[in-house]
């Protein structure tokens, strides 16, 4: 299994590919079914955000280790308009895209670590990590 891989996130079909690759990595790392489902669902939300709000970008998968534990880190990056108010964007139910507004907040809840960097006009990078 590679330890670092970057996938394009530009179309609805790419979201399906991201889900499948994240699933196979999660299985490889030894995540149980619920953990797999959570990280795959989080990946699906963030991949869709990358397309809908960022105009497309990339998904990077990294298998990470910290002492004895292993985990999966996912980084979604776009060069879109960025997010002006991060606190607002992280609120449940807040949406500018006509969705349910659960993408970011939901992905955060489904991960163990969550980090977001966004600059208006430059883009957004969201990193999540789930530990086994």
């Amino acid at each position: 299994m590679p330890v670092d891989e970057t996938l394009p996130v530009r179309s609805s079909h790419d979201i399906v590919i991201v889900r499948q690759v994240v699933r196979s990595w999660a299985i490889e790392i030894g995540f149980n079914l619920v953990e797999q489902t959570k990280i795959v669902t989080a990946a699906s939300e963030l991949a869709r955000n990358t397309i809908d709000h960022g105009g497309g970008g990339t998904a990077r998968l990294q298998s990470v280790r910290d002492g004895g534990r292993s985990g999966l880190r996912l980084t979604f990056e776009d060069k879109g308009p960025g997010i002006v108010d991060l606190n607002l964007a992280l609120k449940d139910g807040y949406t500018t895209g006509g969705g349910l507004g659960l993408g970011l907040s939901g992905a955060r809840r489904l991960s163990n670590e969550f980090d977001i960097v966004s600059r208006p006009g430059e883009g957004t990078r969201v990193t999540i990590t789930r530990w086994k």
Partner: protein
Amino acid sequence: MERIPILKMNEFLLVSIQVDMHDRLAMTLQDDLTERIVRDRARGVLIDISSLEIVDSFIGRMIGNIAAMSRVLDAETVVVGMRPAVAITLVELGLSLPGVRTSLNVDKGMELLRASLGGGNGHRDARR
């Protein structure tokens, strides 16, 4: 074009989602189902999601939309077969599928649909 088949069984429509749904497929299903409800005069829609490995907010919204649209068209929707891991994840994601009726399997889903029609004289408010 790729499509999810919709089967007619008496006054009900049955859909079993067997593929990893991409967004366009989900939208097509939504359109096809509403058209079929009207054309077939369906009174109920049963959606089997036992093959779905995840339900994200997009698919969740689609399911909610189908339930809402069919209600407006005088049909009930029941979602059956959700996997336990999917249910756990959905709730943590923050989606509780309000307004969507669920059953554990197809048999129980059909029972629920029949019961909701069984009220007679057009009064179908068997919900809760």
